[in-house]
């Protein structure tokens, strides 16, 4: 398998000189050669090969100086939309969406959260009503990163308010260029606007852009959300590769700032970060040999706490400098960059780590119920029609 893979890589590089080819053209050729994501099926950018072999492809192409698809810019498409389309999409949808998604020609965003539906996402109120051969969508979404650059969105909306909340939801692909879509920047505690509010007014969606059956949007969304948590907690990383490295560097460069109390806290947090990194590495090894563990949610939970602890420590370590802030100007960054900004920014941005993609409280409940098998809290909202729930 691996030798066949290397032969394919060699052929791709021979037929498309990475130095001469236009990046978009090279990426399309790579997709068509099945080398985009090797665990995807043939014809859809993959070879049906073990996921572990992807690192072989990435390393060989990087060594050859080939352009990549800038995965950080299209994280939502790669990490969330793609696995959902692969699992629930029709053949036509897969053919239409996956190639430009992977090459980065079409950016994706996620229209899930609403002002009234955060942790309780299934309570969402955005309505999708049948109109002709499609749907008319009205509502408001929030915390949408990349909405201002996105061509497409994955969207969940209520199609039947008479059913209990989990059962009346359907899942759509929404065209972000529709005139009914209005994107407004949402300013955060860091000063910038990394996210957006999205107002949907009479947005038209053809029925061919529905993913999964009508009323089964919640199951489809679970696939997206599980992949989101893996994407957030799952990147391979060297020792000190994350926030621990940033703080450790400051510690080493600035001996005059050190105190005994901060030293003990730093060592604890450094050890915590290294243990979490090893746990992530162990999870990847399990996935590579086909023993997926429930550790995915654990990684996101662990990294959120550590990022907050370490970034808080750094501000304190800096003393008088920690009183300053680099820039409060409202900007709309395309991606989150923890290392391009100063300590105060990291401290504030890390606060979002335990909120976005499932709060740490929700993740603890998920672990307790799905991993440990503890009984659910008694609930009154599960079997009540959505329209009768108190709001």
């Amino acid at each position, binding site marked *: 398998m691996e030798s066949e893979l290397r032969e394919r890589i060699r052929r791709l590089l021979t037929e498309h000189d990475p130095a001469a080819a236009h990046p978009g053209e090279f990426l399309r050729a790579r997709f068509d050669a099945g080398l985009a994501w090797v665990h995807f099926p043939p014809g859809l950018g993959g070879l049906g090969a073990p996921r572990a072999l992807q690192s072989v492809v990435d390393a060989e192409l990087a060594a050859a100086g080939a352009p990549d698809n800038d995965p950080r810019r299209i994280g939502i498409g790669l990490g969330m939309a793609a696995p959902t389309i692969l699992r629930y999409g029709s053949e036509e949808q897969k053919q239409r969406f996956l190639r430009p998604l992977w090459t980065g020609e079409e950016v994706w965003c996620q229209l899930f959260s609403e002002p009234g539906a955060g942790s309780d996402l299934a309570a969402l109120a955005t309505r999708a009503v049948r109109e002709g051969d499609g749907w008319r969508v009205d509502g408001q979404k929030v915390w949408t990163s990349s909405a201002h650059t996105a061509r497409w969105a994955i969207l969940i909306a209520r199609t039947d308010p008479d059913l209990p909340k989990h059962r009346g939801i359907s899942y759509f692909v929404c065209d972000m260029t529709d005139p009914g879509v209005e994107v407004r920047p949402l300013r955060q505690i860091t000063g910038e606007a990394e996210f957006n509010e999205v107002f949907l007014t009479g947005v038209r969606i053809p029925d061919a852009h529905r993913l999964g059956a009508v009323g089964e949007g919640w199951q489809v969304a679970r696939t997206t959300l599980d992949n989101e948590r893996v994407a957030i907690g799952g990147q391979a990383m060297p020792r000190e590769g994350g926030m621990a490295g940033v703080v450790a560097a400051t510690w080493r460069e600035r001996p005059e700032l050190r105190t*005994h109390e901060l030293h003990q806290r730093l060592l604890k947090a450094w050890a915590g970060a290294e243990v979490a990194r090893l746990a992530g590495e162990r999870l990847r090894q399990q996935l590579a040999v086909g023993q997926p563990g429930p550790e995915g949610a*654990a990684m996101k939970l*662990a990294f959120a706490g550590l990022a907050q602890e370490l970034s808080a420590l750094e501000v304190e370590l800096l003393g008088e400098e920690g009183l300053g802030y680099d820039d409060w100007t409202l900007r709309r960054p395309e991606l989150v960059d923890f290392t391009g900004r100063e300590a105060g920014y990291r401290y504030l941005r890390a606060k979002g780590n335990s909120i976005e993609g499932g709060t740490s409280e929700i*993740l*603890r*409940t998920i672990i307790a119920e799905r991993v440990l098998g*503890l009984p*659910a809290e008694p609930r009154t909202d599960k079997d009540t029609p959505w329209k009768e729930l108190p709001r």
Partner: protein
Amino acid sequence: MSAPDLLYSEVEEELRSSVRALLGDRCPPSAVLARCEGPEPYDPALWRTLAAELGVAGLHVPEEYGGAGASLRETAVVLEELGRRVAPVPFLGSAVLAGTLLLAACPQDALLAEVAGGTLTATVAVPLSAAPGAAFPATVRADARGVLRGRVTSVADALTAGLLLVPAEGPDGPALYAVRAGAPGLGLARRTSLDLTRPLADVTLDEAPGRLLATGGPAVAALRQALLTGAGLLASEQLGLAEWCLATTVEYLKERRQFGRRLGSFQALKHRLAELWLETVGARAAARYAADTLATGGPDAAVAVALAQAHCGALAVRAAEECVQLHGGIGMTWEHPAHLYLKRAKADQIALGTPGYHRNALAALVDLPGPVG
């Protein structure tokens, strides 16, 4: 540096199954509890079966020296299972500490084959609290004829040992001696120890005859290697112990009802257990990393051991404390085995260097020095 293997191999899982099945039959909590106050705190029959029939006494010793020719990774798996049962057998002292010391100091010596084959049980005469980087012990002195005088307190697995490996100040500096049980001048006094399932003894040497095994640098290096290995593998025992505490508590909270609900449905308790589970996930990775790095002799072994102890020592205590607390009144009784785990966990936290000791070791190893001056 090749990537560490943090998983369990099929062979390791088979070994785990054998040990687990044996302990399931022969080492239920009631039996451990009944034995711990009696005259014979160890279970010699269980140890014989483990050592001789399952062959775990010399797993990481090469076959040419009378061992099983496996590695410290397998040894660590056995410790996970022994920790899960707080099994009263001298595995840590004999198979881990003494086996590693002999292998490092004098692999050709016939004693190693006896210890690795399980026909002789041994331990290293250092306080259980001795840490890997500490100075070579100086409480025992040896003269040129190998006559030993001195005292070593709080030695684990000494009461049942047929052989003591004694670090001493010899005429030419640090040295290691072998002293057989029953030797004239050797005294063993059982201590009343916090951990009921790993009893301690004070060892006195009053002109006891010892046989010289190694001196100077090799003696120092061998002791350091034994303590480093012991500390790294102790993390696996702590992992097994914590997993038992977590699983037992989860099962209890699924059954126990108060306020007309199962206790496990209360979010305050669920979140505590989720956090504990998260820490055991980290502990498994850290313990496996330590075992793998020690097994392959990787250059990162000192960091891996310090990291594993910094994390797993505290985790095991927390797991046992949560087990007692979340069992409520029953957790406070002598009858329920939770206290055996709490006592083992608290003693293990001090054994072979506390988490704080190992964190400070990390400071030097990964270049995070403390304040200047």
